């Protein structure tokens, strides 16, 4: 089971990580992102030099003392020709570097961890694939991977085009209905990395974030076993009431909680919702209060999203949020 104090320590960790590049292209933590970051700096350097050169020549042209215009331009022709050749050389060089970087990005690793990510308006369904059917499990909006092992994502879309992008780890790839795309990355450092949908997908495109948690192999296996297990049994009367409410009200039509009777497939799987750091696809940090707030009024927090407001009174809301907050 995940660390129960994580919701408390996470904000502090987040504050610190914000300085070093939360969701930043320039803060790579995987092999692919590192290569891309180096490529970016190379391009910035080369293009910067070119721009400075052009600007300096322009300023010199504007400020210099003029000789009377003569109709012969042979020397100028040679200079311009040389500049054009230099341009061709630079562009050829950049294209070659770019081509090699492209080759370095793709990898076909047979030992890769296979995960299917399916994009919905406006959340991410994550299915951990395995040759053995009983090792397959579904979660949402948060991906855990062991450090150092290549991850191969199969990207699918349920409705419109989305784009999977975790800049600290690798470049993005679109999720396109009717198309099977793949993306792979090899994380190098333990940490928590944020990603966001990068293709406009409708009303709440701005709030379609996800988290990739890179952890040690042992921690990953511990997490995986936790996800495979059915939902935690409710402890105490309030949680029992909450479970009963979940299964008898509209919640069960859309959401699945393994080990109970709720088996909806329209919305995210909630079997281990409290083990995730955020709810509503990166909108709110997971704790009982935010779960209650979300359930009470989802349309104010994320207007236009597909979760309806289920009418609940105060005690029902308390019971429900107690139950859900315990689903580690």
């Amino acid at each position, binding site marked *: 089971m995940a660390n129960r104090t994580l919701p408390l320590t996470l904000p502090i960790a987040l504050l610190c990580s914000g300085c070093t590049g939360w969701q930043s292209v320039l803060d790579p933590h995987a092999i692919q992102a590192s290569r891309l970051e180096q490529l970016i700096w190379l391009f910035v350097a080369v293009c910067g030099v070119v721009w400075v050169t052009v600007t300096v020549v322009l300023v010199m042209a504007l400020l210099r003392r003029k000789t009377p215009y003569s109709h012969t331009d042979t020397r100028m022709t040679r200079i311009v020709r040389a500049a054009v050749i230099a341009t061709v050389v630079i562009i050829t060089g950049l294209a070659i570097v770019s081509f090699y970087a492209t080759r370095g990005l793709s990898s076909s690793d047979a030992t890769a961890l296979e995960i299917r990510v399916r994009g919905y308006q406006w959340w991410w369904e994550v299915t951990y694939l395995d040759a053995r059917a009983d090792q397959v499990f579904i979660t949402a909006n948060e991906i855990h991977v062991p450090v150092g092992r290549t991850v191969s994502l199969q990207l699918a879309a349920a409705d419109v085009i989305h784009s999977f992008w975790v800049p600290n780890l690798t470049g993005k790839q679109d999720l396109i*209905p009717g198309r099977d795309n793949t993306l792979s990355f090899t994380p190098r450092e333990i940490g928590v990395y944020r990603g966001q949908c990068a293709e406009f997908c409708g009303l709440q495109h701005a709030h379609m974030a996800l988290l990739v948690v890179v952890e040690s192999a042992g921690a990953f296996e511990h997490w995986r076993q936790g996800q495979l297990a059915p939902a935690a049994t409710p402890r105490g009367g309030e949680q029992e009431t909450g479970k009963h409410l979940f299964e*008898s*009200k*509209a919640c*069960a*039509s*859309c959401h699945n909680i393994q080990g109970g009777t709720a088996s909806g497939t*329209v919305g995210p799987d909630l079997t281990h919702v409290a083990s995730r750091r955020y709810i509503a696809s990166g909108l709110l940090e997971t704790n009982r209060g935010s779960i209650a707030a979300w359930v009470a*009024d989802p*349309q*104010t927090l994320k*207007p*236009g999203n*597909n979760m*309806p*407001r*289920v*009418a609940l009174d105060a005690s029902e809301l308390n019971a429900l949020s107690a139950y859900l907050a315990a689903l580690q």
Partner: protein
Amino acid sequence: MMRGVGTLVLSLFLVEGCARESRNFRLDPPIAASLDAVAPMPNRIGGAAPETDTVLGQPYLTNAYNLNQGKQLYTWFNCQGCHADGGGATGPAFLSGWWRYGPQAVSVFISIRDGRPEGMPAFGNRLTTEQIWQLTGYVRTIGAYSAQTAAPSRNDAMQSRPSENRAPATVATPSDEWPTAPSR
């Protein structure tokens, strides 16, 4: 004269457009609760719609966003399991344009919320009132006699019927489903 005609046409579009295109994602809770307050006839065929629905201008029948959401809900909650894409399977067809419990929106709403004998489950506990109204509005476009501008268009799925905004999809034909007495 041309200008006058143009202005008239434009203003017609204006009025219709406002109702069709507005997006209202969150009904105030009291209004949402009051949408449940339909007053059905004793035989549960037809009845009075909630006052708030009428006051709001029947948004679930005329608003494109609501009808579109209804269409999504139709797929998500597997109405196709019994009704197919309107052609009917174990449940009655909508495409024929004939309504077993009458064409009124309130009847359809009651069918979805409370269920009907002979197999229609009650979804009152399974869906919110707003969702049931969205489904109601959508289901009525399946069997509509005339094309409605606000009606949704085809699914990004396999073709099983013409789009709802190409109504009439089929013409109502007498069938042996016509009951001679109200079914109970």
